[in-house]
């Protein structure tokens, strides 16, 4: 039911764990199926220099988290905020229809982590987004 890219990311997930001394933490749960993702980020000069995840969920949820962190790493905060669920699913070569909701977790978790960073630094999304024109990731 899963494509090769999904299985590859599930079997060899990238960026598992927690960054040391995170600048932002995002934790989101999916009310549909109970999946939970925790994303931690390290930020330097408005760039996501490190992104890690912990996920409780099915293969689609794990692969989505892995792919999302891989895309986000090294990108600007604005690009991170522009990362959408659809982009994650597309980068994975698609997900089964019943599993599309799993890709929500990863992007939502990343956005929550960035929001947490912004909150800690007394800033808002509007301030970040005006700094750079987001370009399509992946």
């Amino acid at each position, binding site marked *: 039911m899963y494509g090769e890219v999904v299985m590859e990311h599930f079997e060899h997930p990238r960026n598992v764990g927690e960054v040391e001394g995170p600048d932002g933490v995002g934790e989101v749960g999916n009310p549909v*199926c*109970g*999946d*939970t993702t925790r994303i931690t980020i390290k930020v330097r000069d408005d760039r996501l220099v490190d992104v890690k995840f912990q996920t*409780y*969920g*099915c293969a689609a949820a*794990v692969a989505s988290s892995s792919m999302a962190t891989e895309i986000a790493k090294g990108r600007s905060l604005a690009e991170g905020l522009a990362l959408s669920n659809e982009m994650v699913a597309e980068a994975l070569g698609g997900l089964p229809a*019943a599993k599309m909701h799993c890709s929500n977790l990863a992007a939502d978790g990343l956005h929550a982590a960035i929001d947490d960073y912004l909150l800690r630094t007394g800033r808002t999304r509007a301030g970040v987004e005006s700094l750079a024109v987001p370009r399509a990731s992946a």
Partner: protein
Amino acid sequence: MREVYFDHAATTALDAAVLEEMLPFLGVACGNPSALHRRGRQARQAVERARHQMAAAIGAHEGEIVFTGGGSEADTLAIVGFAQALPPGHVITSAVEHPAVTQAVRFLERSSDWQVSVVPVDGTGRVDADAFAAAFRADTRLASVMLANNVVGTIQPVAELARVAHEKGALFHADAVQAVGAIPVDVTELDVDLLSLSAHKFYGPKGIGALYVRRGVTITPIIHGGGQERGLRSGTENVPGIVGMGAAAAAAVSRLPAERPRLEELRDKVIDGVLASVEGTTLLGHRRCRLPGNACFTVRFVEGESMVLRLDAEGVAASSGSACASAATEPSRVVTAMGYDAVDARGSLRLTLGKENDAADVEYFLDRFPAVVNALRAMSPLSARS
């Protein structure tokens, strides 16, 4: 890589000797059992011989076996075929039935004025006999409780429940799809009126099942046509399937005395090994009243589908009641009915052993399993929190 098939509750490999018996009927012995000519008579003879074998395997008479297109059809025929002949009334099932039963009963509820009571189970998945007895009403016409559960392997006190149903003036149906070939099944001892069977669970072919209908019990067909199977299941008989089912049933019953204790021993090794080597695991189901090949656990903070796929990468075929391992989005209905929370329900892992498994398979699995769980737990935000 070693391949270990631990998913016999899902389906089994066709027995080689059974296949041999089926082969002629897939080829030149193609006759329609209703035909008058030699090939037709040959096919009829084969069907009736298989009916005899199937009946003998469960202590029934030949005239009490109706071949169907599988276990789900047998359940539907038992419930809908029984109910549609009667004025609407009340039917009782348990909270851990197979979807073929729960959906058939829901169909009655939706399509006519039948009413349904679902009796709860205890923490081991056993139907509470008192709650069962209390659920009966004056208009209760049928109770349907499975003989053995497909997820957790719990064996129900069917004989006791059937006696209660009869005392209350209702008939009793048992889905015995997981039980036949695994434990002794005798329709007289169980005192059931209707009993569903499926061949591919006991090393027979897929797409063939049967319903035992006790003499004197009236059901009506759900498939209409040429009136085969005493009018209860129209459609040209699946002769190779029927032949395979009869042969597989006979073989399973003759294997049972040796195979049951052998599987129980292997199963207990799996259970004891998992509980001892992986923290946060709980056995699901009853420790003793369970199918000989069934070991089912909940693994705290680990999601079922992930476990199944990781085990698959290690060569072990297992399954999970996890919602996400199937198409459904609800947590495992069976596991939550036993009182477990959603996280436990999602972390269920079912290992079902069968005749081609040996001690080396169990050792291999027990060797690989802890690392699979540890890798997934290392990834889980839930385990870090506790």
